Every structure is written in C-alpha cells, then in structure tokens.
C-alpha cells in the first residue's frame, strides 16, 4: 500500500503553513527514504574515512561501501563492467566531463554536436562551451507540436562532421519519454555516439544501457532518492579509455613526477580529488527503493491513475495549455501555462495551500523560447504521491486561477 511507501519518507509528513505538504517538485529533487538517511548517517558515524589509499580499518569500511555502490549502479543499469561506472557530483558534472574529455579527444574545428531544443541547460551549455573552445558547431534537433522529438529530422541533421549527439531520456519540462534506443540506432548507423541525459529518465524508466546501446548515460543521485552530490556517468569502455582525464589530482593518478604523470585505470581516471564517499553508498538503498517501487503494483497503478487524471483535467480545462501532450509517452510530470495568470503568482498562491510546485523557465530557456512562453508552472509526481494529492492539486489550481482571473 502507498501508506507503507510514504512512511519510509519522513519529509512527506511535514506541514507547511498548517496544511499537509503536497510535494510536487520531484523533478527538481526527490525526497529521501529513511534507508538513505540511515546509510548516510551510518557512513558519517561509523564509516568515515577517505577511501582507497589508507590501510587502516575505517578506510576499508568506507572503500567497501563506496565501491559497493559502484557495483550496485552497474547492476541497476546493466553496464557490462564496473569500470564503466564513474561517480560524479551529479548529471551536470557528468555531462561536463564528457563534453570536455570527449571533446579533447574527438572534436576539432568545424565538427558538429547535436542536442535537442528540449534539453536542460546542463545538456546544452557544456556543449556550447566545448564548441566555443574547439570552434565546432552546435546543431539543434527540434520538437513537434505535441512536444515529442522530431526524430525524422535527425537523419538530415547528421553529417560527416557530427561527432556526438546529446539527448535527454525524458525532458524535465515536457515529461515525455524519448525514443533513445531508436535515436542511438540512427546515430550509430552514421558512426556517431550518443549521450543520454537520464536525470529524469532513470527515475521513471527501467534503464538497461546495453539494450539502449547508448554510449553515455548520465544521472544525478538526488532525483533518485539518494544523497545530494552523488551522480553517475556511464560510458562505454572504448570511449572512456580513449578520453583524457577531466580534472587532475588526487586519486586519478598512477604516478606523478615532473617529467611525466601517468593516470589511474578506469574508473579512477575520472575521479579526481576526494570523492563523495559518504554520499555514494546511499545510491544502494536509493536504487533498492526505486526497484521496489517499480515492482509494487499498487504504486504503479497509482502513478498511472495520477498521470491519466491530471492529464485529462489539464487538457480539458480551457484556461490551461499543457505542453508535452503525447499520453503514451507521458510520465506524471506536467508543465503548463494558464491564460491570463502568471506562473509565479499561481505557484505562490498554491504554496500557501501546501502545494509545492516549480515555476519559471525550469533551466530550459531555449525550450521556453521555442514554446513562446516566459515560463511555465510544473507539477512533477513521485512514487509516493497519491491520487488524492493529485485531486487536491487540481482543486487548488482551480481556486488559484479564480483568485487571479
């Protein structure tokens, strides 16, 4: 039952302004289950030591927890080896790592990188920086009117000069699952690797990187119930091996001298400096929760009911324009505009009703421009949200709109 699930998340029982919290900003960050909090504090209290180097007992405990998390992630996304799992501080750091290191190895003047118009800034700006540095060209794959990716235009965009395609698994604004396997097939037919931004995808979709056949898959831990400051870069070994290090120092070296420094093997080559050894182990209980939620029929039924209910309510309401309207690809994430009412006003009013929403450009200004809006209001649901909360959200939205119009 959902009550059992909700009980695992202490933060959900909070009251704001005297009203029960209805947390619908899960796409920004998820709440953490008690198991994650426990692992986190246990690591700090009884396993706090810097990993890998020291020979003392605590260092062993910490290293095991950290490397155990790597095994957990490898199994979760079915990577073919643990060396293909690089820990980062989050999805943004992972994209930056690839944009820099892949760029150093494979991108030169006049080469091309393709992203979509629906990307989060974190999957745009690192590529812009790369293109600036290398005098390369950033090309943009458009969306269709319903918000789905215009995959049919991809063939035309790909050229002899295309070196990489970076696309989100699920847009953080549109809430639609992109056909990343199909995209990878098209790109691979042209010999072009694909990076998938899985910040939202990892939360809502089962991910098998070998089945998707993507070259890179990145995600953040904190959207997947794990500690903040955790993140994952999956990369096919052939690419990671061929890429130079991103940052230097700390654990990424094999030996250092002023004449020559050699680098550690994968994955340490990309893990410079002291790692988030307290945070990374929380990926294990976080993944366990994600898997349990996926296997839980009651949760899945509730999620489907929420998606259908909110989708129907928002599309029926003539005052509301919902963006991302392909129901069969839809996750329970809804970004919309209300005619005559500013998204920020709505968010502010609904906050006082206990409903936590996101308003604004949601780190996707190019998409806002493409949609012709200055910002949107977003409700994003997690596996612990109930249909009852969805109904309350719709009721509050109606009240808020009436206050403003």
């Amino acid at each position: 039952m959902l009550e059992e699930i909700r009980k695992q998340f202490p933060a959900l029982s909070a009251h704001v302004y005297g009203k029960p919290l209805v947390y619908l900003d899960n796409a920004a960050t998820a709440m953490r289950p008690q198991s994650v909090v426990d692992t986190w504090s246990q690591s700090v209290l009884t396993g706090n030591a810097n990993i890998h180097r020291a020979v003392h007992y605590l260092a062993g405990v910490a290293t095991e927890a950290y490397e155990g998390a790597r095994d957990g992630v490898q199994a979760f996304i079915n990577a073919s080896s643990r060396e293909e799992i690089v820990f980062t501080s989050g999805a943004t750091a992972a994209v930056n790592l690839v944009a820099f290191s892949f760029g150093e190895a494979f991108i030169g003047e006049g080469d091309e990188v393709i992203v979509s118009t629906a990307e989060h800034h974190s999957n745009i700006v690192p590529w812009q920086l790369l293109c600036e540095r290398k005098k390369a060209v950033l090309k943009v794959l458009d969306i269709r009117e319903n918000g789905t990716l215009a995959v049919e235009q991809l063939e035309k965009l790909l050229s002899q000069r295309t070196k990489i395609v970076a696309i989100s698994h699920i847009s953080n604004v549109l809430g639609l699952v992109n056909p990343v396997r199909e995209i990878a097939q098209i790109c691979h037919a042209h010999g072009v690797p694909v990076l998938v931004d899985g910040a939202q995808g990892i939360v809502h979709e089962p991910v098998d990187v070998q089945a998707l056949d993507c070259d890179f898959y990145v995600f953040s831990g904190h959207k997947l119930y794990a500690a903040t400051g955790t993140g994952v870069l999956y990369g096919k070994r052939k690419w990671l091996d061929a890429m130079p290090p991103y940052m230097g120092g700390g654990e990424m070296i094999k030996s250092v001298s002023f004449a020559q420094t050699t680098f550690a093997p994968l994955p340490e080559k990309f893990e410079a400096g002291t790692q988030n050894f307290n945070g990374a182990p929380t990926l294990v209980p976080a993944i366990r929760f994600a898997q349990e939620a996926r296997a839980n029929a009651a949760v899945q039924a509730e999620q489907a009911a929420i998606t259908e209910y909110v989708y129907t309510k928002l599309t029926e309401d003539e005052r509301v324009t919902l963006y991302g309207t392909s129901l069969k690809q839809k996750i329970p994430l809804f970004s919309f505009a209300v005619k005559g009412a500013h998204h920020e006003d709505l968010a502010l009013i609904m906050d006082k009703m206990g409903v936590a929403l996101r308003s604004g450009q949601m780190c996707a200004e190019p998409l806002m421009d493409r949609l012709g809006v200055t910002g949107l209001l977003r409700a994003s649901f997690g596996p612990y949200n109930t249909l009852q909360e969805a109904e309350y959200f719709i009721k509050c939205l109606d009240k808020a709109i009436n206050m403003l119009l």
Partner: protein
Amino acid sequence: MSLEEKKQQIVEDFSVYDEWLDKYEYLIELGKGLEAFPEEKKTEERLIKGCQSRVWLDSEERDGRLYFTADSDAIITKGIISLLISVYSGSTKEEIVADDFGFVAEIGLKDNLSPTRANGLVSMIERIKEIAGQGRQ
C-alpha cells in the same frame, strides 16, 4: 496624507487579514487596480533586476516631490510594487532616503514571500531609494 500616515494605513489594512491567502487576495486587488503603464515605457532601464517576474518602475519629480508609476507581468508582484509606490509617491527625496522601509517588515511581507520573491522586494526598495538618492548632495 503624510508618509507616516500612509504607512500606518497599510499596516492597518494588512492587519485585518489573518490568512496569507487573504493578504495575497488584497495584493492581487491592489495589482489589478494599478494605473496602466504605457508599453513604450517598459524599457530595459526601467526594469528592476533581481525579480523573477518582470517589474518596471518609472518616476517623475514635481514640486520637489517624487511620483512613481510601475508595472509587472505577475499580479502579486504588481500588488507589492503598487503598495510601495502608493506609500512613497508624493514624498520628497529626503523623506524617502531617510526612511527605513520598516513597515514592510511590520506587515510581514518579506518573511512570507518565497526567497526569490523576497529578493525581488529588496530590489524594488533599493531602486526606489536609488531614484530618491539621485541628484542629492
């Protein structure tokens, strides 16, 4: 009405509402009642930086007193700027510069806004002070 009286009036108006939703309702009414702001005046120079929604502020000096006009694309923000300019319009530069804007804290406005909105409020106050500070010794 003097500046002090106007501030007192606002504090009293606000105190009738217990619930913040009602206070918003009041701000929304203020926002809706704000005099129309000409489109051509919505320039980059009149835009107040630091607000999530867009806020424009213009001023005019007549007989040694400042008169403000403003607009915003968000109605609650518009209500807030409306409240500020209704208090400070008609005051002298000296009065505004010397004022501590303490009534804003008294009505609990800043504490009850989201941090981004609260920053916006601070930016609005700073802009009013900045305008009043211009051309003084």
